[in-house]
C-alpha cells in the first residue's frame, strides 16, 4: 500500500495495523527517514518537499509491485510526506512483512533505494540565514539504486 500525505505518521501504529491479528508474519522491517539538521556541511533549519501529484503515486505503486514480485512479502507499506517539515520529523516510512527476515530486510532496502531515484519528490532546505535551496541529487543514491538492477 502507498500513501502520499502532508501529515506526520506514527511508526508504531503503522506496524501495529499491519501485524494486528496475523500469526503468519515472521519478520517486520521498517525504515524511517528523518529531517536532519545538516546537509553537505551546512546547517539546515527546515525542509519542504514538493511532489508531482499523480505521477508520485504511479511511481510508488510500480516500485511496490516490483518489490512484491522479487521478494516473498506478505505486506508492504510506503508512506511519503510532502509540504513543510520541522527538524527531527519523519519524512518517509517503508514497512515490509515477510515469513522470514531476509526478504523483509532486502525488500525494504530495495524500496528505499529505488524510491530515492524514481519517485518525483524534490527537497528544498532552509538554512540558518533563512535562504532556501533545492537539494541536489547524490551520486551515492544513484549507485545504491543500480545495485538492484543486475537481477532485473
Amino acid at each position, binding site marked *: 500500500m502507498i500513501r502520499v500525505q502532508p501529515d506526520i505518521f506514527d511508526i508504531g501504529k503503522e506496524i501495529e495495523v499491519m501485524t494486528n491479528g496475523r500469526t503468519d508474519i515472521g519478520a517486520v522491517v521498517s525504515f524511517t527517514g528523518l529531517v536532519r539538521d545538516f546537509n553537505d556541511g551546512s546547517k539546515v533549519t527546515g525542509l519542504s518537499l514538493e511532489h*508531482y501529484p499523480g505521477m508520485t503515486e504511479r511511481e510508488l505503486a510500480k516500485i511496490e509491485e516490483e518489490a512484491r514480485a522479487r521478494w516473498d512479502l506478505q505486506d508492504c507499506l510506503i508512506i*511519503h510526506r510532502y509540504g513543510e517539515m520541522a527538524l527531527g520529523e519523519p519524512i518517509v516510512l517503508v514497512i515490509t512483512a515477510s515469513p522470514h527476515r531476509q526478504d523483509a530486510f532486502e525488500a525494504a532496502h530495495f524500496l528505499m533505494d529505488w524510491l530515492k*531515484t524514481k519517485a518525483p519528490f524534490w527537497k528544498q532546505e532552509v538554512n540558518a540565514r533563512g535562504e532556501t535551496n533545492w537539494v541536489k541529487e547524490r551520486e551515492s543514491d544513484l549507485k545504491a539504486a543500480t545495485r538492484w538492477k543486475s537481477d532485473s
Partner: protein
Amino acid sequence: MKILYFAWLKTKLQMTSESVPWSEECRDTDSLVRWMKTRGPSFAEVFSDLEVVRIAVNQEYITGNTVLGKEDEVAFFPPVTGG
C-alpha cells in the same frame, strides 16, 4: 498540451504550469525542448543543460524522443531528491 514545471525549473521560470497549443514545433519532446530554448533568457537557461532536466509524458518517464499529441501532459523537472 499541458506543461508542468517542478522544483528549481518552476522557480526559475516563475510558473508551475501552462497550456501550449499543439503545433508542428512541438510534435515531439525533442522539438518541444528546442522550441522552449527560443522562448527567452530564463527558458534558454533552464533548458541549456539537459543532463539535469528529466522529462515525463503523461506521468511516465521517457528515455528517448517521444511523439506528442494535443491532450498530452509533459512535465519537466530536475533529478528527484525524495526519501
